[in-house]
């Protein structure tokens, strides 16, 4: 397949009988850029579901509307953009037939990524991407991140990080049966973490996961750039007293792993 982008643009009246036409156009597009049957089936499914949403949901019954589809094949991926100029996604008390109930989950399952947005000039745009198989017909291997034991967060450092960490910790601590006193100790530790310097973190955001460690909870902070974890610990020392806020914790460790440097702070209930 060519590495140059190949593009298809299709504009249609948002009518049910045009859904078949969308699939035919995509089949022709697939012929033109020599993509396999599996990827074509995925593209047809996504395009049909997305255009059907426009047909069923975007426009009032007595109004004829437009739906546009753009397919761009580039660098081993096909991106589909389906756009209408209707009333947008709205929660409805009862969904009619051909509802979003099955359609959006189906798109989510078949697409490698997808998002829905409301453009400033109205309507809805759904963008989905499908990665194409290689020449041997093998799809790319999808690796899933580990399931977090509690919650993983990455927050802009500073005042916005404090309330998020405090509230998430409070929920986790309530579930873990923390006393009020220990919960408040944990919130103080969370505040100290939130005050971290963005430049100490590998992606410039305060990364924290709150995990269960047996009966205790663990703040796992990072990944840091090299030395970032120690700098955070240094900042946790109370000025003039030589005492660190980490005294409230049961265990404090700096871990250097393959995924970067992390700080582990464990606190008991």
């Amino acid at each position, binding site marked *: 397949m060519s590495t140059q982008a190949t593009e298809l643009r299709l504009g249609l009246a948002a009518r*049910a*009988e*045009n*859904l*078949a*036409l969308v*699939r*035919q156009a995509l089949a022709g597009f697939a012929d033109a850029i020599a993509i396999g*049957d599996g990827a074509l*089936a995925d593209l*047809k*499914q996504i395009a*049909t*579901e997305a255009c*059907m949403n426009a*047909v*069923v949901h975007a426009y009032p019954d007595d109004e004829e509307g437009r739906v546009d589809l753009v397919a761009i094949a580039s660098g081993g991926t096909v991106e589909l953009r389906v756009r209408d100029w209707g009333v947008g996604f709205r929660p409805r008390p009862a969904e009619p*037939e*051909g*509802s979003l*109930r*099955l*359609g959006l*989950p*189906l798109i989510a*399952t*078949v697409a490698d990524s997808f998002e829905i947005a409301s453009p400033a000039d109205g309507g809805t745009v759904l963008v989905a991407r499908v990665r194409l198989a290689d020449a041997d017909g093998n799809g790319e291997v999808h690796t899933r991140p580990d399931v977090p034991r509690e919650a993983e967060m990455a927050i802009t450092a500073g005042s916005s990080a404090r309330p998020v960490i405090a509230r998430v910790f409070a929920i986790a601590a309530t579930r873990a049966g923390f006393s009020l006193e220990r919960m408040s100790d944990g919130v103080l530790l969370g505040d100290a973490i939130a005050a971290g310097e963005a430049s100490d973190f590998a992606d410039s955001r305060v990364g924290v996961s709150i995990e269960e460690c047996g009966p205790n909870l663990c703040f796992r902070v990072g990944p840091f750039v090299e030395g970032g974890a120690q700098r955070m610990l240094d900042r946790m020392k109370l000025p003039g007293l030589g005492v660190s806020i980490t005294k409230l914790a049961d265990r404090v460790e700096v871990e250097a792993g393959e995924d970067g440097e992390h700080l582990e702070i464990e606190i008991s209930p």
Partner: protein
Amino acid sequence: MIRLGRRGHKHERVEIRPGYAARDVDVVGEVRNESAGDRVEIVVLTGEHDLGTVPRVREALAANGGKALLVDLCAATFVDSSILGALLEARRTALEESRAFAVACSGEAEPVRRVLEVTGLADELPVHPTREAAMAALEASQGSP
């Protein structure tokens, strides 16, 4: 310039710029009812089905004469979520009326089979690999005719 015009009720002719031959593209799926004795109604879907054909599919599913219902998707090449919704509705009605319900979808109907699997409907409907297997399941659930 691609001109699209309706020709009859089941074909659309796609005429492509000079240099390419105009070709008929069978873009609309067919649905038909077949009776298998007095206990099972079979609804056969062939080709592509979506919101455009769902009224005919619903009509065919409803015309079951109070019999057990077998939906044969072995020759279907595409179904969208509106068709899945119609199948779920037909199954619900059949169960409410104490009629057996089964779907057949062979491995050859790969895109359809995949959609049934990724939505979890392959287990829920349930889906059998051949019409014969689906018929056997219907007969087993009703007692042999």
